[in-house]
């Protein structure tokens, strides 16, 4: 951003919109934008970025949950992290923001499917799952389960900005932001709007097989390009223990070494593995709290270990 910014249609020798000479150089004479440049209006910081910064000042840790690949468990991991964080300490306030606009899953996973969002003087009130766990998603704003959000990029960006500026979260210790797959509008918007807001970093979710890692490497490349700190990578669905014979088998084979090997290659922290537990999938479908439903699941121990690693990563 620090280089000279010259619009495509600017006259020759344009000093650039951010220059001190903007609107005042000899080349500016006759340019239709001379007035705007001279007024200094284009030089200030993007007002939306400032607004997001102010609105999220009461939020201690802001974490993005990313993955280049779909269906690897971003939303499930987000739900598990938020529930575990909230359950561990009743004085800790946790919130989930679902910025997957076309396929919101958080309302179902957190068991608040048919709730509604209310408007108050200080903004939208999120939906509360527990006393210290709230969630906001476009799912609450849709009329029916079949309603599709057929939007191009700019409209999705507007929605994300509204989510970041207009939700009344109150004081929060953790805000987890669940994203759609890819490296496009939603991701760029979130990273831009949060660029001044002291983002803690990104947790990346993957599954062990190469076809997922391939897309996840792209997401890591994206984070490096836009300067998002990578808190670490979680490998989900690694290993499946047969409920009848208790023998573990690899459904999604780590034929290229899995997430651990990728983390070594790309020099990012590895946060841990989550086993594939069909009971977790069922809890998610039914929106039940897995901590109370299946307290013996190996996934609970694993997620708590991962949380410890995330907290360590944030402090570094």
């Amino acid at each position, binding site marked *: 951003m620090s280089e000279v910014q010259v619009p495509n249609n600017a006259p020759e020798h344009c000093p650039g919109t951010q220059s001190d000479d903007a609107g005042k150089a000899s080349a500016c004479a006759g340019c239709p934008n001379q007035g705007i440049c001279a007024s200094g209006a284009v030089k200030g910081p993007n007002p939306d970025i400032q607004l997001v910064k102010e609105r999220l000042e009461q939020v201690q840790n802001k974490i993005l949950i990313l993955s*280049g*690949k*779909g*269906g*690897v468990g971003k939303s499930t991991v987000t739900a598990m992290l938020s529930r575990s964080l909230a359950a561990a300490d009743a004085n800790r306030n946790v919130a989930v923001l679902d910025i997957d*606009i*076309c*396929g919101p*899953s958080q309302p*179902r*996973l957190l068991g608040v499917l048919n709730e509604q969002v209310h408007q108050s003087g200080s903004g939208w009130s999120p939906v509360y799952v527990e006393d210290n766990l709230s969630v906001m998603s476009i799912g609450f704003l849709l009329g029916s*389960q*079949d*309603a*599709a*959000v*057929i*939007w*191009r*990029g*700019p409209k999705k960006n507007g929605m994300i900005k509204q989510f970041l500026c207009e939700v009344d979260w109150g004081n929060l210790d953790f805000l987890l932001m669940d994203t*759609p*797959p*890819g*490296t*496009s*509008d939603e*991701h*760029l918007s979130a990273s831009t709007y949060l660029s001044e807001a002291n983002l803690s970093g990104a947790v990346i979710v993957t599954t062990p*097989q*190469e*076809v*997922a890692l*391939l*897309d996840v*490497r*792209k*997401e*890591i*490349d*994206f984070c490096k*390009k*836009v300067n998002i700190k990578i808190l670490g990578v979680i490998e989900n669905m690694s290993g*499946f223990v*047969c*409920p*009848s*014979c208790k*023998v573990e*088998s690899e*459904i*999604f*084979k780590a*034929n290229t070494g899995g997430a651990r090997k990728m983390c070594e290659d790309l020099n990012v922290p590895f946060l841990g593995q989550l086993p*594939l537990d*069909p009971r977790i*999938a*069922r809890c998610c*479908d*039914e929106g039940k709290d897995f901590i109370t439903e299946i307290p013996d699941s190996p996934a609970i121990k694993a997620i708590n270990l991962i949380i410890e690693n995330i907290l360590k990563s944030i402090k570094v």
Partner: protein
Amino acid sequence: MLENVKHVILVLSGKGGVGKSTVSTQLALTLKEKGFKVGLLDIDLCGPSVPYLLQLEGKDVHQCPQGWVPVYTDAGQKLGVMSIGFLLDDRNSSVVWRGPKKTAMVKQFLTDVYWGDLDYLIIDTPPGTSDEHITVMENLKQVKCDGAVIVTSPQEVAIEDVRKEITFCKKTGIPIIGIVENMSGFVCPNCTECINIFSSGGGSALSNLLQIPLLGTLPIDPNVGALLGKACVVDFPESTAAKVFHQIVDAISKEV
């Protein structure tokens, strides 16, 4: 645009990671084995998987006077593939594009690829109902699109997004050929007990609810995941997956 293509089939799903690309590639390979000339277009720009799944990574797209020449999987040029993966220098580099740029790329893929004469063009899509999908739908208005194959996995959380995709098809007038339920049931290699990891029956429930045919139910089969470029109908002709792909192809050729 696409004048010499007889049938265009979209592979869609609102949800990611349910097996769109696996179904697309196996569908293309099955059609090829049946003697058809097939094209496979991957319009997932941020996460192209087709080059890897067909073991074509590192291949280059060439230019000819008629346009881009797709990458062929075989010497007989029975299966041509186009993906943004062929245009990237490094398999790890990301495509960080907003909508308008993606739209332009998809449009170019639809207009500038020289497929030659094709019996089937299969279009593999990214998850969602946004730029890529709107662009394909708008452009396919000019050519006859035979319809969409919807891929889902059985659990509620996937079905929820797939219902949105079906609404998208209905709103935009894309006919739906049917639903494929993927990842339903895993047979434990040790005790051969079938376990429904991601629950079961979601696809048939959806097909009943919305009156859309269920084309088949694919189990989780790590062998199919490891095929990489080979057709399951050839390598594992006795597997459930092979039978289902035969069924799907029959349904498609009947439909179109």
